[in-house]
């Protein structure tokens, strides 16, 4: 057995978890022959022994303080079970608020004015113009102002000239 193996499984050995007799013998043999592991084991045992010997001293003040707190807990437990105070207070406040709102509403009910119905008014009948909708590429502004008020960037387009039907038939 190597020292590394001994240290790695030292806890099991110390706590008696190595139950196989052969393994336990291996540990015991190594501990008996290796001074480094003996030092390790002795240091640990001595340190822990010293720790176990020194416990904290309890003063009477600690116990008295605890007894006072326990007495207050006992008194609290002995009291008849009432609803929790904060919850009870909150519920009471909500009930009062609801009551106030209801009372206020009943006292000052707002008057609702109903608007009078107006007499029916004849609506102008829309006039539909039959025919093909007029489509033009002419700038509509040119029809408002004579001449071209925007000479730059725009093109003045003369309205198309349509020969009257009677004139075309006579020429034939």
């Amino acid at each position, binding site marked *: 057995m190597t020292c590394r193996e001994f240290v790695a499984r030292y806890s099991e050995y110390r706590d008696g978890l190595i139950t196989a007799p052969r393994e336990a013998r291996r540990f015991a043999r190594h501990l008996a022959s290796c001074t480094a592991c003996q030092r390790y084991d*002795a240091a*640990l045992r001595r*340190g822990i022994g010293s720790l176990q010997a020194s416990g904290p001293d309890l003063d009477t003040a600690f116990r008295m303080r605890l007894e006072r707190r*326990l007495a207050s*807990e006992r008194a609290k437990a002995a009291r008849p079970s009432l609803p929790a105070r904060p919850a009870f207070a909150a519920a009471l406040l909500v009930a009062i608020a609801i009551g106030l709102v209801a009372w206020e509403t009943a006292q000052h009910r707002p008057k609702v004015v109903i608007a009078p119905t107006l007499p029916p008014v004849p609506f102008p009948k829309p006039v539909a113009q039959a025919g093909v909708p007029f489509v033009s590429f002419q700038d509509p502004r040119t029809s408002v102002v004579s001449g071209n008020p925007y000479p730059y960037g725009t093109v003045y387009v003369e309205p198309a000239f349509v020969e009257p039907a009677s004139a075309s038939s006579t020429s034939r």
Partner: protein
Amino acid sequence: MTMTAINPSPRALEREALHELDDAHVVQRHLAGDSQAFSMLVDRYQGRLLSFVNRTIGDRERAEDLVQEVFIRVFRHLHRFDQTKKFSTWIYTIASNLAKNELRNRSRNPLVFFQTIKRNWEADHRPLQFEDTTARPDDLYRKRFLKDAVEQCVSQLPEHHRVVFVLRELEGKSYEEIAEITGCNLGTVKSRLNRARNSFAQLIEPLVE
């Protein structure tokens, strides 16, 4: 000549009877309304819990406050305790959780570093008059030196190793109990304990030679 026999009071007899009972029965007596039963539980656990919490958090005054809190919580919630389980495991779990919370809060609040300074300061100025006067001065010195050294070594262990180490070496808890108290699995407890022991041995070895 007449002899007057000193009869112990019924209260003392009751207390004597409580001494004989194990934790589970004392808990049952408390739940049944025995006013002395809870005091018995406090008697049994106050020193052990104080030692455990003190070594876990490294601050005696705060440890006392936490142990008081443990007993108050136990008193409030004992009726909810599953009596098929071990009482000692339950009470140590409460103490361990409170100690863990304390360490977590401390890491968030750097102001408590003052406690460390205060602790060292107290160690230097501890009065000597309460020591055992029958022992030789060099023995006293060696004993005190070793005590301080081992406490220092324990405080140097990482928190999760320290808890396992203290529970095993000082409180004598089984691996299963430690696993239940710390909320870890058995394998983790074993490996943490082995590492804690190795670290402790390495720290203490040069000091005890």
